[in-house]
């Protein structure tokens, strides 16, 4: 019994490391531009699809590289879109949400046309590690290591470099940052691309862990958003912990609840987290700038 729970916990953490990677772009974008990129999950699926398609003929390393590259490219498109949509004097964040929603549908449709409805998965490890009584796939170690390495890199980048300082300045107050001579638009474009990079890496990891399919994109975005919201949107680094929690909730509910409830429980969990108002950003004067 205890062992079973432990196994679910490990499996959840394995998934959760990936959600943590997806949470980062969500929260960083949220604090810098006050909008959400609903296409984050779609980048991950795109990366997985490209990796799957390319590595069959050109080898795995090139497949992984091209997969991540395609995700970054897609996020660059969205970043450029956001620049042109947010041109006006009073940008409406909902318009950007709608646009990324539309772009996610485009990506989903591209993946569907290219690859069809088959699930995509790669599991290269046949031998599992025996840790005490539980079996752990070596992939878990790769996921966790990738997650932690990227987390450290991001931490150093955000808090120890001048570029990271500029980025945090844009997040705190875009107007003042622009007055201080920080290229706000270029920074926000970079934010989108970092998001694409992380989502691409997450997509590759998903391909090697649980597998994915063309329609998984929005679900991944939602998991990433939930992970980002859970411990507070304003600190991007907390998203990783949130991701692990969401992953564990998913693994536990898939293990202990029957069919439909297993899928519904994580959604309900995120909905409750949202309803508790954690994602509300408070403007002092009722939404007025």
């Amino acid at each position, binding site marked *: 019994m205890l062992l079973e729970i432990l196994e679910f916990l490990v499996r959840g953490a394995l998934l959760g490391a990936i959600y943590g990677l997806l949470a980062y772009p969500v929260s960083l974008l949220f604090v810098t531009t006050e909008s959400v990129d609903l296409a984050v999950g779609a980048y991950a699926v795109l990366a997985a699809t490209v990796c799957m398609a390319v590595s069959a003929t050109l080898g795995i390393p090139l497949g992984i590289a091209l997969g991540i590259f395609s995700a970054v490219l897609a996020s660059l498109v969205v970043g450029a879109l956001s620049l042109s*949509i947010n041109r006006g004097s009073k940008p409406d964040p909902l318009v950007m949400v709608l646009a990324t929603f*539309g772009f996610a549908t*485009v990506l989903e449709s591209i993946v569907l046309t290219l690859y069809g409805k088959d699930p995509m998965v790669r599991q290269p490890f046949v031998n599992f590690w025996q840790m005490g009584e539980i079996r752990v796939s070596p992939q878990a170690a790769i996921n966790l290591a990738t997650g932690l390495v990227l987390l450290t890199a991001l931490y150093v980048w955000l808090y120890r470099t001048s570029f990271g300082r500029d980025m945090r300045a844009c997040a705190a107050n875009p107007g003042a940052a622009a007055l201080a001579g920080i290229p706000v638009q270029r920074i926000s474009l970079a934010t989108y691309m970092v998001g694409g990079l992380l989502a691409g890496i997450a997509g590759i990891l998903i391909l090697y862990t649980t597998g994915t399919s063309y329609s998984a994109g929005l*679900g991944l975005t939602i998991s990433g958003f939930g992970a980002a919201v859970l411990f507070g949107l304003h600190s991007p680094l907390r998203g990783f912990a949130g991701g692990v929690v969401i992953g564990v909730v998913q693994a536990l509910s898939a293990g202990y609840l029957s069919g439909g409830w297993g899928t519904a429980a994580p*959604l309900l969990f995120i909905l409750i987290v949202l309803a508790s108002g954690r994602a509300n950003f408070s403007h002092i004067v009722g939404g007025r700038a």
Partner: protein
Amino acid sequence: MNSAFRIRQRPTLILLGAVLLLSVLSYGKPYWLDNSIVIAIFSLLALSVGLCYGQAGILSMATAAFASVGAFGTAVLTTRYGQSPYVGLLFAVVAPVLLAYPLARALTRLSPLPLSIATFMISSLIELAVHEGGELTGGYIGISAIPRLSLAPTAQSMHFLSWGCVLVTVYLYVNLMRSTYGRAINTARHDPLRASADGVGVPHLLASTFAVSAAIAGVGGWLYAHHLTYMGPDSMTTNVSIQVLLMAVIGGAQTILGPIVGAAMLLLVTLYLPAAETQGMVFGGTLVFVLMVAPRGLLGTEWRALMRRRIFARTPTTTVKPGVKA
């Protein structure tokens, strides 16, 4: 019909004229009658988005989910319990309201962004409930042999009934937006603080608007179920919500007739699209394009002012006299 009525109800009268023209054009042609019924049903769904997103600023991705509550409700009532479809209509109006109002009360105090994500999750949950409904919703098989309406047994009469529903909805919609409630909804959208300073109960008002828009979607679902006589788990999915959102945005979500124009245009385009796989590319791509070029939609954009500004931008020497209204 006095002139005040004519001015106020201009959208309804324009729509009435368009429907009459459409009825003449499609008379006795089953293919076009069928399309016109589908356009009417999607117009209702798009109007629901118009009220919710265009007027109240709640970006809802659950429109199709509320429609499916209405559709499955009437399907279950008529096929499993042998009730009349009109009991189903009652259910299709009441159930989405009862579902939407408390949800909205819990959620409209959120900022617009988390709110839209929350509606997406509600939509996924309802979709899941349909999948897992077992005997009741037919699970993956769905419900077939839903009876046609006794009011409208033929395609021709169904055409009149569904457009009649749209006309009534537009009439009520115009009245609502002209009333103090409508003004309050718009104020609450632009500045909630101002609205509550005016003595408007913002959460109650927004939740009610959301509930009314869910009811409109429910009626759309009711018509849909009795028109197609089949409801499956794939009938009213999140994809349909996206399409409906797109229709409202393309036509102009803040205008009264915009959603209907958008619905008609997109459905006509869909008739000539090749494969189902590429639909997402067309719909999503169009959405992005429209948001970039004319974010207020076809009817919401002031095209003349836009053109004039373009011309001025090209010839900077032209001086605009201050105080002269363009």
